[in-house]
């Protein structure tokens, strides 16, 4: 398994803390880990076709920005995203799901990591992990679709220039 799958498995464990374990800390780490599981899945998928050196590939991975990824995912989710080819590829519902989960997880991750006034319920974390798992499943279904390929490009460089 790759790092993305490992992180998702870890997020699932953290969402179900054992008695005596620090509950709020576990739930917060679960949510943050679920976000990074999906983040790394998408980044790895985007750079895997890159034929450069491992160093160059690492450099490419570091170019992904959370804000751009959120904006593009939000556009895909709500149907306003335009791909790079003409006509723009139809967005399958599985890809919309991946994009929606990315947006939701990113916001939850920011709150989980930085808003110490917020109290999390176990169901919050478990629902987000379940969403992440569903997004992984949907990505496997849709990853060869032209819209998925162009979505990955958007995650890296943002909107298509008109």
């Amino acid at each position, binding site marked *: 398994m790759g790092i993305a799958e490992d992180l998702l498995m870890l997020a699932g464990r953290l969402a179900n803390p054992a008695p005596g374990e620090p509950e709020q800390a576990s739930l917060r780490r679960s949510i943050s880990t679920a976000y990074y599981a999906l983040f790394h899945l998408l980044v790895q998928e985007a750079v895997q076709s890159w034929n450069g050196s491992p160093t160059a590939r690492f450099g490419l991975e570091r170019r992904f920005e959370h804000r751009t990824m*959120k904006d593009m995912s939000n556009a895909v989710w709500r149907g306003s995203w335009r791909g790079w080819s003409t006509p723009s590829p139809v967005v399958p519902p599985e890809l919309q799901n991946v994009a929606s989960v990315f947006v939701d997880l990113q916001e939850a991750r*920011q*709150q989980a990591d930085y808003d110490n006034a917020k109290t999390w319920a*176990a169901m919050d974390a478990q629902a987000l992990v379940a*969403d992440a*798992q*569903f997004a992984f499943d949907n990505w496997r279904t849709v990853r060869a679709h032209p819209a998925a390929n162009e979505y990955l490009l958007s995650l890296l460089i943002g909107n298509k220039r008109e």
Partner: protein
Amino acid sequence: MATTYLSPQQLKDFAQKVEEVAKKFPGEVVRIRHSFGRDWDGDPAIYFRIVVTDEARRRIPLAELTGKIKRALIDDLALFASEYSVYIPYFNFRTKAEQEKLKDPQWE
């Protein structure tokens, strides 16, 4: 702080529609609370806080349970095709038992 571009009447209509969605799931949803604000990046956002029954949590697979409630809110409120489309919707879930323990006023 409530941050919204909507009029008082629009807010009232919105709250009414949220209530109607909650009533569509009598066996699953205890109540739905919501608030307008800005998300962590400063984008306009609607936060939904959904309390589900403990029985539904036990009986229904989690992604299925949360997914159908989210879809109903997005579709019935036309969140992506109306004056609300400027807002990014976010959804949080907890069970009735969890809320009774946490006693968070924003979820009451």
